[in-house]
């Protein structure tokens, strides 16, 4: 009786802890080079569940600093879910459960003692739909630095507002109307305002969740140029539906399919010599 109780424990543990990639024959191991020797952000054996449904299966991937990594894959493959794990935004969804390890500069961000406010100040996020606050342009950018206490005086805040808007390529367009509502800008300007708002906090990593999907081609081109400039100072991870965009802006590409990380590699390698047949079929447009 007692022994049988003990013997049940390891069984439970194996269901909770996922085996490493390759041990489960039903699950394809990630092709390419998901792991790097030097990385800013690294995930190991990440599983995400929405209630009983598993959305991500055993994701292991590294991200290196000062480069753009794009996450591609068909709709519903879990790339946005994965992105939202990196700054613990999934915590806002009640039924979402995350297990596995995500390390930012060697520190596991999912440990309970890690402060989520601090984490999000280090890992900023730009969303799919431009979502400026219904406040003035100045307030939109100044809000982050203000709540984090990065600047106290009006002069300092004005400095941050100006540099952030300049880096986001928006300063010349809005410098004369900083007190007008941010929601009065065009879609592309709003998205650049949201980027300015994110970089105003000086994060280390910027997560972008399809930042151009609601924008026209010209606005998209501006944001893409901006991403190219921002990678000098930030680690950028971008989810995109457009493979052209992925090939234009990113140095590394990760392909997700049905909750599995199928292939990771340099953008050039993934697009020219994909190793996995799913990757090849997706980028040649046979499905997706």
């Amino acid at each position, binding site marked *: 009786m007692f022994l049988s109780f003990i013997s049940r424990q390891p069984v439970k543990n194996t269901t909770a802890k996922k085996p490493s990639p390759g041990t489960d024959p039903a699950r394809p191991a990630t092709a390419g080079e998901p792991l790097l020797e030097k990385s800013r952000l690294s995930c190991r054996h990440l599983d995400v569940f929405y209630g009983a449904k598993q959305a991500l299966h055993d994701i292991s991937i590294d991200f290196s600093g000062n480069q753009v990594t794009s996450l591609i894959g068909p709709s519903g493959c879990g790339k946005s879910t994965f992105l939202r794990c990196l*700054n613990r*935004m999934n915590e*806002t969804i*009640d039924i979402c459960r995350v297990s596995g390890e995500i390390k930012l500069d060697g520190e596991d961000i999912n440990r309970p003692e890690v402060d989520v*406010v*601090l*984490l*999000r*100040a280090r890992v*900023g*996020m*730009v*969303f799919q*739909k431009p*979502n*400026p*606050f*219904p406040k003035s342009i100045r307030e939109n950018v100044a*809000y*982050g630095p203000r*709540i*984090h206490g990065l600047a106290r005086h009006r002069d300092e805040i004005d400095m941050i507002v100006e540099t952030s808007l300049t880096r986001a390529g928006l300063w010349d367009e809005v410098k004369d109307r900083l007190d007008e*509502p941010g*929601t*009065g800008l065009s879609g592309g300007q709003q998205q650049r305002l*949201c980027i300015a*708002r*994110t970089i*105003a*906090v000086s994060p280390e990593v910027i997560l972008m969740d399809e930042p151009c999907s609601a924008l026209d081609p010209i606005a998209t081109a501006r944001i893409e140029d901006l991403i190219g400039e921002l990678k000098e100072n930030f680690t950028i991870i971008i989810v995109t539906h457009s493979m052209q965009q992925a090939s234009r802006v990113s140095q590394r590409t990760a392909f997700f399919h049905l909750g599995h990380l199928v292939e990771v590699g340099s953008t050039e390698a993934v697009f020219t010599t994909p190793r996995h047949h799913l990757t090849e079929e997706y980028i040649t447009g046979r499905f997706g």
Partner: protein
Amino acid sequence: MNQNSRPQTVSTAAIVAAGLRKRYRAEKRFRRLGIGAVILSLGFLLLLFGNILSQGLPAFRQTEIALEIEFTPRLITADPARGNYRALARQALQRAFPKVRKRRAKKELYRLLSNGAAFELRRMVLADPALVGTDRRCWLPADDLVDNFLKNPESGKKRLSPRQLAWLSQLHNQGRLALRFNRFFFTRGDSRDPEMAGILGALCGSIFTLLVTLALSFPLGIASALYLEEFAGRNAFADFLEVNINNLAAVPSIIFGLLGLAVFINLFGLPRSAPLVGGLALSLMTMPTIIIAGRAALKAVPPSIREAALGIGASKVQTVFHHVLPLALPGMLTGTIIGMARALGETAPLLMIGMVAFIVDIPRSLSAPATVLPVQIYLWADSPERAFVAKTSAAIIVLLAFLILMNAGAVVLRKKFERKW
């Protein structure tokens, strides 16, 4: 037989065209029905307003008699508060009609003036002590029978004696009898004499009661809505609370009155008939409405705003108070207006806690005995004197005006908080 077997020669356009007229007819029918419903309800509203206004407007004017008052120091005495002002008024009537000598005739003469005339004279002397010793013409309130006679001469004259009618016509010819603006209605509390009964007491009672209600139910309601919607999360306890709040909003109001009687008066020993207790009972009734409206307003705030704030590292509380609450506030205010309007019109719970008493004094504090506008309407509607019929309608007009004023204020507030972008 089925639709696929129709000949291919009939095009889709022809089929659609054949059904078009029927569709448009249905549309027109529905539009007419809607317009009819609006006209019907507007008609009833106009009927109601017309009826109330036609009955209530005469009460805003009051018959007054101008008399030469000699402010005799002997009658006013050393302490003006205790002077014999009734004698002062009678002396003036005697002066106006010196031929009236007989005791019965004098009694009839005195009855032309309201009992309130003496109070009015007292008020004048207390307000301006320099009046003592002077001699001046004053407009004093007439009795409600005289008032009624001036407003409805045909039915009114049956209640007056021929002698009184003769005196009145004499006063009228001298220009000493007139319908003037009813200042007593807006400056006095309730009275047994209809000509002296005013609405100010009930109005103050209503304002105090609503202040207590607002001060309690608004912050508590908003805080509860915020907690339940933003912080509590979804669990069995939250569901249990939600069901109970919804039930609470549907509880008949008299139950809250019973609760107020049992808890606030009997258990806590708070004074009965007081706006404080009335406000407490009404806030129990108003709070669920505010909570439900507040939660709906919070739910309507787009999640993208929450994500934006959380995404740059705002804490939960910062997100809620900097971004979510300002956007939800207009909706919350709407709910509060609805709740307060209901509280303003509520009678039943106040009957249970004794706010139905006959109260002459104008309440000056939250614990002074008071009544409220709807209760005052109920009390006057129950009074036998004819003049109270008009007073009842006039009180309804005041209640409606108060309601409109309150709502207008709330709309202005809401407009101020509403973000235009």
